[in-house]
């Protein structure tokens, strides 16, 4: 398995490395620690959410309500903090709980009513978003308590920033790492994680060997909701304000990062490592295009072409190895 998945991600990893080289040759600032840290910090929310999306995509599902969930949770937590307390722990607790609740609703609809995930989540996306905007009318929440804002400013061990000074690792990145780690452990070392792959590969057989599709679906979508909760708090800790409209169109970015990272949208395949590459690829492209001074009107063209080339090379590569593979050992 190790070999196989490595192979699957190697192309996209090569593309990422090529892009990094090209950008760095144009502007060496790219690889400067402070830029890397800023880039990762700016993409933690995408990264955390991708981990949630990854697990559903492996089962062949999808959750397009992630943007709506994060937005709604930022509002819930924001209101809570403004009205009650800026306690960070409580914020995380509330966010996770509300995320899990949203996820459970998705999971229940999918498991019990057998409505395809994309339809269910399209529906809940529209409901959650509509209800949340009706409630807030889009008004920003500005008065996030100082204690929470200070939490967002925490940095850990200083590293040189490449310009003679030092820069700390923002606390948000820890959550990204944590999300990746937990997801990796679940996928790799838990029975349910293997069940996620098994369902993606052959749902009928998965039931036959004793997995309960319903239970796994409930778990999965709650997990996505949980990740949305964490992402929401992390986002608020970075932005220090809550904009209920901040996540429109976010679901596509998340899906993009995950599938570019080699997860099979039909289910059965996908890894944390690949998804990380996908997230970094997207992040590096966005960051690098400005660093390379590419005019803004060309940026989308370049991004589009890079995606197309990356995924095509990947497929062609795999096809070629498949064709070369000897099926019969001839004397």
């Amino acid at each position: 398995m190790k070999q196989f998945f490595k192979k699957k991600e190697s192309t996209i990893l090569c593309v990422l490395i090529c892009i990094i080289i090209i950008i760095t040759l144009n502007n060496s600032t790219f690889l400067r620690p402070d830029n890397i840290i800023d880039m990762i910090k700016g993409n933690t929310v995408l990264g955390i959410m991708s981990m949630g999306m990854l697990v559903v995509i492996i089962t062949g599902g999808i959750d397009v309500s992630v943007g709506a969930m994060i937005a709604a949770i930022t509002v819930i937590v924001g209101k809570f903090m403004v009205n009650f307390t800026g306690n960070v722990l409580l914020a995380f607790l509330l966010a996770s709980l509300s995320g899990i609740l949203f996820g459970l609703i998705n999971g229940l609809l999918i498991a019990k009513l057998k409505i395809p995930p994309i339809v269910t989540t399209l529906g809940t996306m529209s409901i959650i978003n509509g209800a949340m905007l009706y409630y807030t009318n889009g008004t920003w929440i500005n008065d996030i308590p100082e204690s929470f804002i200070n939490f967002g400013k925490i940095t850990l061990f200083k590293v040189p920033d490449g310009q003679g000074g030092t820069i700390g690792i923002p606390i948000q990145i820890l959550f990204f790492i944590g999300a990746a780690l937990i997801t990796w452990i679940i996928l790799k070392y838990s029975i349910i994680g293997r069940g996620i792959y098994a369902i993606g590969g052959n749902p009928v057989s998965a039931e036959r060997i004793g997995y309960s599709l319903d239970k796994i679906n409930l778990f999965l979508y709650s997990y996505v909701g949980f990740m949305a909760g964490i992402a929401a708090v992390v986002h608020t800790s970075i932005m220090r304000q809550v904009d209920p409209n901040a996540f429109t169109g976010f679901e596509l970015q998340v899906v993009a990062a995950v599938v570019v990272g080699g997860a099979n949208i039909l289910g059965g395949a996908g890894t944390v490592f690949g998804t990380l590459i996908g997230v970094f690829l997207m992040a590096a492209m966005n960051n690098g295009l400005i660093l390379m001074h590419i005019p803004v009107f060309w940026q989308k063209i370049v991004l589009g072409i890079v995606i197309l080339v990356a995924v095509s090379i990947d497929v062609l590569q795999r096809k070629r190895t498949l064709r070369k593979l000897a099926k019969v050992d001839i004397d």
Partner: protein
Amino acid sequence: MRRFSKEWMLVGVFIFLFALMSILSPDKFLSLNNLQSMAFQLPEFGLLSLAMMVVIVTGGINLSLTSTAALSGIMGAFALSIMNSAGFDVGLTIAVAIVVSVLTSLLCGLINGSIISYIGVSPILVTLGTMTLFEGISLNFTKGGAISGFPEQYYWFGNGTILQIPVPMIIFIVFIVLTYIMLEHTPWGLCVYMSGCNPLATMYSGINVKKVLLKVYLFSALLTSVSSVIMTSRYNSAKVDYGSSYLLQSITAVVLGGTNIAGGYGKVMGTVTATLILQVLSSGLNLLGVKRYIVDVIMGAILILILAINFINSNIKFKTKNKSHNSDSNSNLIVSLLETLKIAKKG
């Protein structure tokens, strides 16, 4: 029989909602004015939904749908405004513009289709890339602005009426019929459904599945370009983000219409009815003065509700032991239902 019921149930929902809206605001909803304006609004979205549907039937998805429409509209708009200001004959100008629109869209379809079928990249990845690419090209051409300055006569496609029937509606109906015939009455259509279910077996049967797939993307692009002509005419201009909110909406309409998101099943009638439902809801609720957000909530709820009814519907069918031929998942479903029934009986 079961297969038909899904679509007919949608028709029922449509009639119900139509009646409901008529009762709630009889003078306004049933006015010629409102009926006409709904008929003006529906076609551009309906055509995009059909374009999305043909792709979903093959098991794919087209995320570049709206950016294709925008690019095609922008190219057509350039032709219109350039030739118009250069003083060409109006008829010729419009003809050239439409041809340019259609060709641009077909080119986009060709790019999508050939990468998907001949290189074999999964549709969601390809169209994710082309979505960004086409949007980038549009931006590069327009610098974000709107292209306008069309001849008066172009206005007709999106805003004219014939015998009180809006022109776009007539165009829409023509393309509904065309799509219906293409999908359900031609060998190509049969191949589309067959390869949507099992491309390997279809290929083994001597069908050039790649060509079939390519044609699907071209046909989808054709529908997109028609929609884009209507849009540019209705908005009297073209711009990179026109209709961008139609992307997820069209997927919603397609799945609401009963199309299997995994491919292999989907009817024109279902999709069209679904777009009608969405239209009646959105116009009706607007007339009632319901807040926009609540409209979103209701739309989402209706989507889930209808599919839930579908589910329950098929269960009732099972109870009455109608003869039916279920797909694999359905038979599993029935098995699990049997179990629940049994538990219920025991308990």
